[in-house]
């Protein structure tokens, strides 16, 4: 219980810091623009976008399921990396505490892989190869892929494109049906709205 309270306080404190940074950058952007320093204004706006990306990422983490199958979310491993521009924001969540069998969830906005995944989803015969299968997760098209696990085990990964974002869900050691069932607990529509 103490841990949860601590995590909550830490989360709120981080959000406050980001919110303050955003307000500070906004003031800088306005001041620089008014004085004709266009490049400084632009730089402040880039910083604002990074702050926004991080805040959005933390908001997305809040709405993710607390449990996935038999594993609880590992709050310590929650991570949001805002690298506005090339990749956008990377949101990372793990379920479980044993590295080798953790369920990993990664959401990357502005992912460069998005066009290739969309191409596979649009052309059925490309997606329906031996190792890939097109499925639906909460009404959104996604690709489930066979990957080689340790000791010749077959693992499964799901990739779900959302506009320019890409959700990757990895659950080593689970059957394909279990992986799909777990992925269906993700609030995909809400994530899409937050990242648009």
């Amino acid at each position, binding site marked *: 219980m103490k841990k949860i309270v601590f995590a909550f306080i830490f989360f709120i404190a981080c959000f406050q810091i980001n919110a303050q940074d955003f307000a500070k950058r906004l003031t800088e952007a306005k001041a620089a623009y008014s004085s004709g320093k*266009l490049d400084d*204004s*632009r730089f402040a*706006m*880039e910083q*604002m*976008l990074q702050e926004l990306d991080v805040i*959005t990422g933390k908001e997305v983490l809040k709405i993710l399921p607390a449990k996935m199958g038999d594993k609880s979310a590992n709050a310590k491993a929650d991570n949001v990396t805002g690298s*506005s521009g090339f990749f956008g924001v990377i949101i990372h969540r793990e379920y479980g505490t044993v590295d080798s069998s953790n369920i990993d969830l990664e959401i990357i906005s502005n992912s460069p892989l998005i066009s290739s995944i969309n191409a596979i989803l649009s052309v059925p015969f490309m997606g329906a190869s031996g190792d890939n299968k097109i499925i639906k997760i909460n009404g959104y098209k996604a690709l489930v892929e066979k990957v080689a696990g340790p000791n010749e085990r077959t693992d499964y990964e799901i990739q779900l494109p959302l506009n320019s974002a890409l959700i990757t869900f990895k659950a080593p050691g689970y059957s394909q049906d279990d992986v799909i069932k777990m992925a269906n607990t993700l609030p995909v529509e809400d994530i899409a709205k937050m990242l648009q």
Partner: protein
Amino acid sequence: MLIPRILTCFSIALLTCSTSNSQGILKKIKDKAQQAADKVVDKKIDNAVGVDNNNSNPNSNSPDMSNVGRSGKPSNKTGEGLISTPPNVNENLTSAETSFKAGKYSDARYAVRQAMLGVQMEIGKNILAGLPETISGLKKDATTDQVTSAGWGMGWSGLTIQRDYKDGDKQLSFTIANNAVWMQAVNMYFNNGGYMQTSGGDQKWKQIKVQDEKSIIEFDASSGYKLSVPVGQTTLLVYEGINFTNEQDFMTAINQINIASIKKQLGEK
């Protein structure tokens, strides 16, 4: 024992065929009924709006379909295009602040990107205004002036500024790419030992310095001269010269564009 089985199979096959046939007939009847109903509805609508479809007179008020394309759509002959209005920076920053305070982060992000787009367009226009009117007797072609920005977030292209100078078939095209990811490719020439300059054979490119900046000059018989100058951390200047007499002629033209001034406006060191 075998005969009853054969008879059973035959009966099932017959039943299936007759079912599919009757389904086909039913579908045809349904389609015909639908077509007839559509015709009646269309006629009623035409009567209501005053269109006479039976009029075959070429002088009637029916639209000119002489340029009808394969898809049946008439080709467009008018329209002044879109108005190029850069987003208002102050308005979008205020909107970003309001959205942020209301917890609408997606809207705030959109507004910041719009504000950034507005600033980038302004930077581009200022740079174009600072470029010479003529270079080596070539006049600027204002119609091809272009500032392109995807705002921040697309990342690939950033801000692109273009200006052409022309006189007859001689042309100098100048492009500035700012915040461009692909400028890394040019930096690779300088950093990678694999791209070595050769002294023998056909010299396609070489490294030179232009206004104290390292650069690469290339020549191709069909496309002419090309100079690429990476400046600062994220900017690439590209000059392309068509029908220049020689390298010296091309370099004289290029040196009339002040790189230091462009760097300053783009915030490059």
